[in-house]
């Protein structure tokens, strides 16, 4: 409620009277400017003066009373304004023209203005004086006729400056600056607007410009001469200083008919501002110095594009910026340094938004992909070097820079700006496929310097440049089909990038910020991925696996020698990729009769590499990190080698001979296992023996044709060979029993596996025995099956005696009993007479022989039991 009353009271007692007096004065001014037949100019002037006197008189009278003081002061202001206008109108307004000399009128106006100032100052009220000035400006505004009528404005401005300085009414001066320039702009409008967009010279151009310059000089002198007592006054002074220049330039631009003068105007005003800023009288006030220096520098920068274009603007701006920066650094003046930095950033913005954008526009649709070394190397790279020097060299040597957090932040950002400029500059200078090489090289350089001088900004930039190079490689260079002296540009550029990334990996890593992030490893991973991708693109499909394997081999060796786990992991991935790829490409290779199979010569080297990796890992087992151990990389390498050979046999050999091929591999693996004492070979041998049995039963034994197999592909030969080889591997299986583990294993399946692995002789005896028995059952004539099995049992018994294995002996006995059962159940009823007696004789002999052997070797057998 209280506040509502306050507002109401303020409105009623303060604002309403000011509005009222303004409207009244304007009304009388319109009256004086209006042509009347009944009242001549003299009459109007008289009316004007009478009205002015009435307002002044009543104002002075009532001002004494406290109650009416506010209203009375409004009346005094209005009276003086009307008096000033009437004096002005005596010469300048045709309807009130009674004076023939402009000089006399001007003197009168000065007299009135002086009296007005002198009188209003008595009240020591900025509002009253300001109101009187406002009204005076308003009257000049409503009745302006020619350019010279604006001289009244100059006179008013002069008066106002005088008062502002005397009374330190700097708010009043802001109002004066606004009024002066806006009044002038309103005067210009009827002249400029009809011209549309094409301005033409007009007669009042020079006087108008002179009046504007006069305003600017007047207010600038005021700014320089004043003494601010507090921060508030300094703030208003700063606003006034900025407004003065901004409005001057705005109105000059509005009336501009010769754009070519803009450069010189800005240069002149900027230089003056800068110089004035350096005057001792100005430097007494820090704020004034900063403001005028900033304005001067800004105008000098702004002047350049009005005369120059393109890269010249960038060069000149960078020069200006550097001049300011160096001056600041030398003089120890932070204002210059900051202004120089800002100008530099503006120059960088221009370089990217204009120069680089133009190049981008040309390159965007592939219309012009030619390099621009002048712009890229001379302009952008030199600018980047200058900014880098400012940020990291000069800052380190300067006494003043780096003390304040803002300056440190500014210099840090300037370094990044330099990085961006260098990044863009290299793209401009070296377009298309070479950009990535340049970026990577710069990244390496920055990483080296960043590490040597501990500059985190450079390390960050190195990482970003590396990332940009990789992205561009993927987007652009991978698709490159151009050649340089018959060598693919894709090969040259991507290989160069990969090598540079490998090199950069040694110098990067931001421990200060990202301790956990293995930036260095990311570099090597990326480089390896790029080389792998490059090989994929450049090589024949069938050679890619070999290429990857070679890459893996080199990475593996380097990783092992230099103790870099990341390189070794990359090698493992390359090995796995190569291994996988043979199943989608190499085994698809077309065979040319009479020619060496491409499958063989592209897959066998892979097995060599895998086995080499296995051997090396075993040799340097202590180098491995825990994760490599927990992932069983050593054994996996060995398995990859064996699986590669087994898979090659699966695809390369005749379908019926695969069992024999695998059986040879079983023999070889067990021999190696026996020689080296390594269990992994035993495991592989056993697994492969199971595969032989599986394939023998499900492939070779299954009737895939109703027609007899031809020659070499006969079941007896293929499976018989496999059986013989498996039996032969028993020679190595027995000694391998010594490798058995005594550790406890959990789980039923694991225990079963442990039993099997600990008794390889059992596996390698029973699997071929099964195959042989079934083979004989399938291949022998029905009449001779029992005979064949009987002979098999005798042979098995001999083996059992040689090996001293009870299980073997029992197998032989079991087989013999099977034969006896078959004779009783089948053969005696179904065989023809010849087969029958032959079967009986052979089986009987076999039983007797076994019985004899049992009797003869009783003691030995008991010893084994």
């Amino acid at each position, binding site marked *: 409620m209280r506040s509502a009353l306050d507002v109401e009271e303020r409105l009623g007692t303060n604002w309403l009277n000011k509005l009222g007096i303004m409207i009244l004065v304007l009304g009388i001014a319109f009256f004086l400017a209006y042509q009347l037949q009944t009242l001549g100019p003299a009459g109007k002037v008289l009316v004007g003066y009478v009205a002015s006197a009435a307002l002044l008189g009543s104002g002075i009278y009532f001002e004494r009373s406290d109650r009416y003081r506010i209203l009375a002061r409004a009346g005094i202001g209005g009276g003086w304004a009307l008096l000033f206008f009437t004096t002005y109108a005596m010469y300048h307004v045709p309807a009130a023209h009674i004076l023939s000399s402009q000089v006399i009128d001007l003197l009168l106006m000065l007299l009135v203005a002086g009296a007005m100032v002198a009188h209003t100052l008595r009240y020591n009220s900025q509002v009253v004086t300001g109101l009187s000035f406002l009204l005076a400006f308003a009257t000049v505004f409503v009745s302006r006729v020619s350019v010279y009528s604006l001289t009244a404005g100059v006179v008013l401005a002069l008066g106002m400056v005088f008062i502002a300085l005397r009374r330190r009414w700097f708010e009043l001066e802001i109002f004066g600056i606004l009024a002066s320039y806006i009044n002038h702009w309103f005067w210009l409008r009827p002249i400029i607007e009809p011209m549309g967009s094409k301005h033409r010279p007009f007669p009042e151009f020079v006087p108008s410009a002179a009046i504007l310059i006069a305003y600017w000089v007047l207010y600038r002198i005021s700014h320089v001469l004043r003494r601010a007592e507090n921060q508030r006054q300094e703030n208003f002074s700063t606003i006034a200083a900025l407004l003065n220049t901004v409005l001057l330039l705005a109105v000059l631009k509005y009336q501009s008919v010769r754009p070519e003068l803009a450069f010189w105007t800005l240069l002149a005003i900027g230089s003056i501002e800068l110089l004035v800023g350096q005057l001792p009288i100005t430097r007494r006030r820090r704020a004034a110095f900063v403001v005028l220096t900033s304005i001067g520098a800004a105008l000098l920068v702004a002047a350049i594009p009005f005369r120059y274009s393109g890269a010249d603007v960038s060069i000149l701006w960078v020069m200006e910026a550097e001049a300011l920066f160096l001056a600041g650094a030398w003089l120890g003046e932070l204002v210059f340094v900051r202004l120089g930095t800002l100008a530099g950033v503006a120059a960088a913005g221009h370089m990217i938004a204009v120069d680089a954008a133009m190049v981008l526009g040309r390159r965007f649709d592939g219309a012009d992909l030619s390099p621009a070394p002048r712009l890229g190397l001379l302009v952008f790279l030199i600018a980047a070097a200058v900014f880098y020097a400012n940020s990291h060299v000069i800052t380190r040597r300067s006494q003043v820079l780096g003390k304040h957090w803002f300056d440190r932040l500014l210099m840090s950002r300037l370094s990044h700006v330099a990085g961006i400029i260098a990044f863009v500059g290299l793209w401009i200078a070296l377009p298309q496929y070479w950009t990535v090489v340049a970026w990577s090289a710069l990244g390496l350089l920055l990483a080296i310097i960043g590490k040597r001088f501990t500059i985190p900004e450079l390390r960050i930039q190195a990482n970003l440049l590396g990332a940009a190079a990789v992205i561009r490689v993927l987007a652009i260079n991978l698709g490159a089909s151009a050649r340089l002296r018959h060598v693919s540009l894709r090969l040259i550029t991507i290989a160069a990038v990969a090598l540079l990334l490998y090199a950069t990996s040694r110098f990067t890593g931001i421990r200060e910020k990202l301790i956990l992030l293995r930036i260095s490893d990311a570099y090597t991973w990326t480089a390896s991925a790029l080389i792998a991708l490059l090989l994929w693109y450049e090589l*024949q*499909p069938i050679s890619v696996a070999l290429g990857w394997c070679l890459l893996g081999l080199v990475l593996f060796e380097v990783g092992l020698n230099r103790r870099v786990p990341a390189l070794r992991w990359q090698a493992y991935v390359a090995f796995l990729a190569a291994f996988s790829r043979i199943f989608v490409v190499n085994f698809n290779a077309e065979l040319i009769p009479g020619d060496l199979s*491409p499958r063989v010569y592209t897959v066998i080297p892979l097995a060599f590499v895998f086995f080499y990796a296995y051997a090396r890992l075993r040799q340097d087992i202590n180098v491995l990190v825990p994760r490599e151990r927990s992932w069983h990389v050593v054994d996996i390498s060995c398995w990859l080698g064996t699986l590669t050979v087994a898979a090659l046999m699966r695809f390369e050999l005749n379908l019926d001979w695969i069992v024999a091929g695998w059986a040879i591999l079983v023999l070889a693996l067990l021999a190696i296992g026996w020689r080296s004492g390594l269990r992994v070979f035993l495991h592989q041998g056993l697994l492969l023996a199971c595969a032989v049995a599986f394939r023998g039963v499900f492939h070779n034994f299954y009737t895939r044709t109703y027609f007899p197999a031809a020659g070499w592909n006969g079941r007896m030969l293929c499976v018989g060979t496999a059986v013989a080889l498996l039996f032969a591997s028993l020679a190595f299986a027995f000694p391998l029993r010594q490798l058995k583990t005594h550790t406890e294993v959990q789980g039923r399946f694991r225990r079963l596996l442990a039993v099997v692995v600990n008794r390889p002789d059992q596996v390698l005896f029973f699997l071929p025995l099964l195959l042989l028995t079934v083979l004989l059952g399938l291949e022998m004539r029905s009449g001779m099956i029992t005979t064949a099995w009987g002979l098999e049992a005798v042979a098995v018994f001999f083996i059992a005696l040689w090996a001293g294995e009870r299980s073997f002996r029992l197998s032989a006995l079991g087989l013999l009993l099977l034969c006896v059962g078959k004779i009783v159940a089948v053969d005696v009823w179904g065989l023809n007479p010849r087969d029958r007696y032959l079967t009986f004789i052979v089986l009987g002999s076999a039983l007797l022989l076994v019985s004899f052997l049992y009797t003869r070797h009783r003691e030995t057998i008991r010893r084994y039991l």
Partner: protein
Amino acid sequence: MKHWLTFILVFAIAAGALVFAQRRRPKASVSPEPLLYLVGDTQRELSRLPVAATRLSDEEEISIGKRIMKRTGFVEVSDKSPADVIAVSNYVNDVGRKLAANAHRKLPYSFHYIPERYFANAFALPGGPVYIGAGLMATMDSEDQLAAVLAHEIEHIDRGHAAERAQLEARMRHLGPLRAAVLLPVAIFQAGYSKQQELEADSEGVRIAVQASYSPEGAVRLLEAFARYDRETEPRKAQTPQQELAGVMRGAMQEYFASHPPSAQRAMKIHELMAAEGWSPRAERDLRVAYIFWHGRATELAAMGKYDQARQLEQRALQVKPDYVDALRGLAEAEFASADFTAAAATYGKLLDKVTPNQDSDVHHYAQALAAADRRSAARAFRSRLRGRPTSPLAGAELSGLELLAGNPQPAQQSELAAARDPNTDPQLTATLGRWHYLAGDYERAQQLLATAAQQRPADAEINADSAWAAVELRRYADAITTFGNNSGQNLAARMGLAVARWQSRQPDAALQDFVAAVQSDSRWDNARWVAALYSPTVAKSITEMKAERERRLQDEERQRRLARGALSR
């Protein structure tokens, strides 16, 4: 030191292999085939024992096959089928029975021909039925090729593939053997089998074909033809890793669902088998029913306007089967269409000699061909050819027409008089007389007769169109345009009639539109001799003019385009 030497050795071996491979450039497609083959082969090996242990009995398999056979939806060939179909069916049966005699399992094998040209497949059902489509047979040129296909399908049955498929599908759908016979779709047997089964069927099929005295080359040539087609339709070789990966993904899907292995691989396997078995090359036998498929192909070519190729194929068919009436008719039509009227008249003559009684349409075309070849001697030749044969009244009308062309109007007048007196006269006879008057240039009379026939048979598009042609000659363009317009859907010539009528009535833009459409749908309009033989000089002249005008406009358009391109480039 030792490990460095080993490293250098291993590196050298791998690098040497790489360089060697790069120089030799062996072909290796990028596809997951080896991997899928490994998986598929192992899966198949694993499933062998369970499938063998639970195999259907022969009786069950035969019963299921018979029931599925009833649901194939294909019409069985019978005595009422066209002669061609019966001939091919019998032939397929003969070859099939010869092959089936060598099959291991003694089942009631039966062979069924599907006479649908777009059915280019063969398939087998459990228990013995084998089907082969006309589309597949049309690609063959020897009996050995047919034997290869049939033997392949026989082996799908003999090796139990079809029964296994039925078993597996029934198990997946939880169906017993009886319900499986009723509910299993035929499509599962048409889709093919696993690659291993297909390769088995190939090799075993070739074996039984060889045992039946067929050449294994038939199978090889057929598969090589398929391989050529595969190459034409196979996707482009990958140029980038991305394309490679996409190809592998696509290949994985295709390979997984693909039934037959690539034809080239199948042909190679058979070559290997031939080498292993030491089979000496043996000449292939002709496909005895090939002429039927040649005629079918010739009919398609004629429909495409390729009359010369059609004539060659028909002649080839007639060399094998001189009495083949369909080929004779096709040859005569092709000869007439290519404006070789003398040859057409001779071929139609042979056709009339072979077919008794003669068909009215053959007689009409014969008369037309004679008239087109020589108007003066046409009547004499016609009379002499048909002397002593039973002929229809229409043949009499054709003879009257030929006499009219030779300058003797009397027979035609008598015929017209007789027709006018008899209210039961066939309107076709009246129309025929009208057409001959049109050819003789008596357009007024032609129009009267054709209009009379059209009144009696208002829905006959041909009579209506012929009436409109006569109206064009009488400059009744509006009537002609209306009539042609109403009948252009049913009568091919009506579109050109519209063009001519519009051209004559000074509507060149619309006329040219119709002209282009008519020429595109029937290339005979481009043959001036054919037009002159069947239509009036006004029509022939109009077509020549329209053709010239179209050429001129096309040249103008081309010139404008060139100018526009020049302006742009400047």
